[in-house]
């Protein structure tokens, strides 16, 4: 029993352990230097990431509340990897910050929440984990303590997530009322498409849509992304979104799997609609943005639209393409944020216009940003091309060619704004370009991981095949 507990929950336990280590360091009398602390955490993270690949086992704990298997372990590993990259990138920003250990404690608490969320086998457990992962996030959004925008972001975040949690909770209570159980597995067997159940499903869907910032529930995203420190923005847009997407697919395919025709139609049409408007609105808004963070915020909304196409596929390939895309998205978006983070920490400049003539002063960083943006835009040979291709292919699986035509044309629109940034970097002249930014070893390392990921994940089919084999 104890053994099982230790092995099945190893990832959660290690994260908890790191949180406690940090707490003890904080409580201790000695002042620890920021650099030491960050390096220590990074080492522990790396160990955590490595350990995730060993002793993989599947099983349930706590009376079917907690369930883990190879797929979930892999998803958690992905989040671990992303968090490690973000931690490496934040070095320049954190080393002068007053509250390093608090930052890490909060970040790890949210990560812990996401782990539980992925593993939750019961909607109640899911809700608890979700709250654990959102409330510290709001505190993190406020981490540029001197900036008013940062507190504003935190406030917007907490209000909107409280609202979406309310919707989720309402949906969950309706489900409990009609079905008498919250266990995902039992729900999937007994689900019937009565109007009240469909209503509950829509409420749940709305709650999820809030968290992944799908249109029309996206309004909080841009402001929160813009106001938060860059590290938190990247965490929000990649890790938090990725975790919710994992759970989203699990819930949609287990508890609310479309069993009968009426429900199947509602299920599909809802997702189809959300996916299309998310793509279009995200793209149209991204076209006009001037601030890099806001720009990436809207582009990430559009990306969610693409990911939802994969979800509509309702096939093993569809789920595989979603997880595969999140993996690629981690690399690509974090590479882009890594550069922005570095530039913002060293010079404080965040506008697209500031990046004019960037190539003259920062050759390496320009290429990293360019590769990241190409990957986000879906240009081969970067991995983004493969990710988008498979998502769209999965979406076409149901024979809805209208959807993929819209999506394919949206890719062209999205390319326009990515290329606009590329144009600013490589082609535009500027009298006052951003000066040469020196990256320390740790952001450099993060960028190497990201770029290697972008190049290799697509060209080598290993990652996709592995994900596909994990799905049953």
């Amino acid at each position, binding site marked *: 029993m104890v053994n099982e507990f230790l092995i099945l929950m190893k990832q959660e336990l290690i994260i908890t352990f790191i949180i406690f280590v940090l707490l003890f360091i904080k409580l201790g009398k000695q002042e620890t230097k920021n650099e030491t602390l960050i390096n220590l955490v990074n080492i522990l993270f790396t160990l955590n990431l490595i350990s995730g690949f060993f002793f993989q086992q599947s099983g349930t704990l706590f009376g079917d509340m907690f369930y883990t298997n190879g797929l979930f372990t892999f998803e958690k590993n992905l989040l671990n990897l992303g968090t490690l990259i973000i931690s490496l990138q934040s070095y320049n920003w954190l080393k002068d910050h007053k509250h390093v250990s608090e930052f890490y404690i909060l970040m790890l608490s949210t990560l812990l929440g996401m782990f539980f969320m992925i593993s939750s086998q019961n909607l109640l457990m899911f809700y608890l984990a979700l709250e654990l992962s959102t409330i510290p996030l709001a505190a993190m959004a406020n981490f540029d303590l001197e900036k008013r925008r940062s507190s504003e972001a935190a406030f917007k975040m907490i209000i909107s997530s409280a609202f979406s949690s309310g919707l989720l909770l309402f949906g969950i209570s309706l489900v409990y009322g009609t079905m008498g159980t919250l266990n995902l597995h039992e729900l999937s067997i007994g689900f019937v498409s009565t109007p009240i159940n469909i209503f509950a499903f829509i409420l749940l869907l709305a709650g999820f849509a809030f968290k992944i910032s799908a249109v029309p529930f996206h309004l909080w995203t841009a402001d929160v992304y813009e106001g938060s420190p860059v590290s938190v923005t990247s965490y929000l847009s990649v890790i938090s979104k990725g975790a919710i997407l994992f759970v989203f697919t699990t819930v949609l395919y287990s508890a609310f799997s479309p069993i009968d025709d009426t429900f199947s139609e509602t299920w599909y049409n809802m997702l189809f609609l959300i996916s299309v408007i998310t793509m279009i609105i995200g793209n149209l808004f991204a076209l006009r943005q001037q601030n890099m963070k806001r720009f990436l915020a809207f582009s990430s909304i559009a990306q969610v639209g693409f990911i939802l196409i994969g979800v509509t596929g309702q096939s093993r390939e569809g789920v595989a393409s979603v997880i595969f895309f999140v993996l690629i998205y981690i690399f690509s978006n974090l590479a882009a944020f890594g550069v922005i983070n570095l530039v913002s920490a060293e010079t404080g400049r965040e506008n697209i216009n500031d990046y004019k003539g960037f190539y003259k002063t920062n050759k390496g960083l320009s290429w990293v940003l360019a590769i990241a943006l190409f990957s986000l835009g879906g240009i081969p040979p970067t991995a983004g091309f493969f990710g988008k291709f498979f998502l769209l292919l999965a979406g076409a699986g149901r024979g809805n060619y209208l959807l*993929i035509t819209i999506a394919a044309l949206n890719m062209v629109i999205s390319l326009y704004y990515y290329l606009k940034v590329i144009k600013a970097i490589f082609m535009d002249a500027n009298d006052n370009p951003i000066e040469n930014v020196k990256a320390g070893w740790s952001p450099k390392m993060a960028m190497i991981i990201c770029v290697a990921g972008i190049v290799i994940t697509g060209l080598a089919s290993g990652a996709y095949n592995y994900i596909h084999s994990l799905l049953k």
Partner: protein
Amino acid sequence: MNLSLLIIVPLLTALCILPLKQLKQVRAVSLIGSLAQLLLCLDLLWSYMKERKAGNSAAFLFEDNYTWYAPLNINYHIGVDGISIAMILLTAFVVIAGVLVSWKMEKLSKEFFFLLIFLSLGAYGFFIALDLFTLFFFLEVAVIPKFMLIGIWGSGKKEYSAMKLALMLMGGSALVFVGLAGIYFNTNSFDLIQIAGMDIPIEVQKLFFPFAFIGFGIFTALFPFHTWVPDGHSSAPTAASMFLAGISMKLGGYGCLRVATYLMPDAAHEYSTIIIVLACIAILYGAFATMMQTDLKYINAYSSVSHCGFVLLGIGMLTKTAIDGAVLQMVSHGLMTALFFAVIGMIYDRTHTRQVEQLGGLMKMMPFISTVFVIAGLCSLGLPGFSGFVAEMTVFMGSWQKADAFYRIATIIACASIVVTAVYILRATGKAIMGPIVNNEHLSLGDAGWNEKLATGLLILGIVIIGIAPFLLKGLINPGTEIIINKIATLGN
């Protein structure tokens, strides 16, 4: 013969360029790399001929098939037939000429040559692919380097042209993607050979043929999606213009033929009238639009629209001779237009203008360049002895075989464009090359250097060989077009 070398060699060349520091080294590596490409292609041609002579009648030779994404049935499947070899040879010629012409490129030379070589990788990959995913992958690989080349090293309204080009081409490939997805879900395969062996239901073909054909058509300046051509070509630096017009537009023609027409022949029959009408519009419109241009690059760019119309016309006619003609026209136009852009670039480098009225009497200052200009012009207007005549004549012969008033009228309209071509070519040549000297500062200008002589010499060699001995190229592509026409003939009836 390992076909993957065609991808590996450019890739290695490009990677070798990256760490270099000096301009000299960059040039040397690019030249060696493109020379290796050319030798490789000649070797490929040689071994292909040998196989064919030995009686190997397989549709595609030197096939390699590796599983790439097993769950999705995606393979890295490559192989060549005569048509692809003709295209590959064309690419090798244009790349080496492009490298030679950009010898003096000093602004960010490393990045320039890197992108140029990387672009050739995309083209080779596209021409050898026998798997639709692989093909699509390489099609898109070849888009972004063009954007960068035009945007960074171009002239005039370069950012605008680069963006327009990238977006229109990506739009084209988006349509291609929908077409491919349609094929995939009705055959459950991306493999070109497998799909060609299946009968796709005609309704499916009719639905997805337009996507694939228009998508590829955008690459080859299908009317009304040709608008990227003039801007893109004229803003691009010389080598990129050569590449764009010489190879990149051929990606589209090849795709229209190999993917759209070959895999969906029934739909090709259905839509052939529309294709022919659009092609005729492109031919005439391109020719008349050229007459109004005063910028040498715009002249050549619009005439490319007109000349690529012949490719589409040949494909639309769906007869053996016409399709042969379309392929010949692709090769011929590739060489000719690359030569034209190269020589325009040389004139521009010296006189710093491309406006016809500001030029005059160049023959006196730079006899070599001027002669090359005249040769390119004569080839463009279809003078016998050069490749242009052979190609256009074959297309006309093929179209005339269709004994129906509609096809006859289309052929006559297309033929009529030759007169217009003669007008603009001869006018530009007469004014800029012959004529009196307009600007006395031009008197001090020098003639072509060794690199420019070599580059143009190679391209002229190609043009003249095809012009004098067209049977060589026709023999090379014959088995390839035969397979396509057989498929059209059996399924179409």
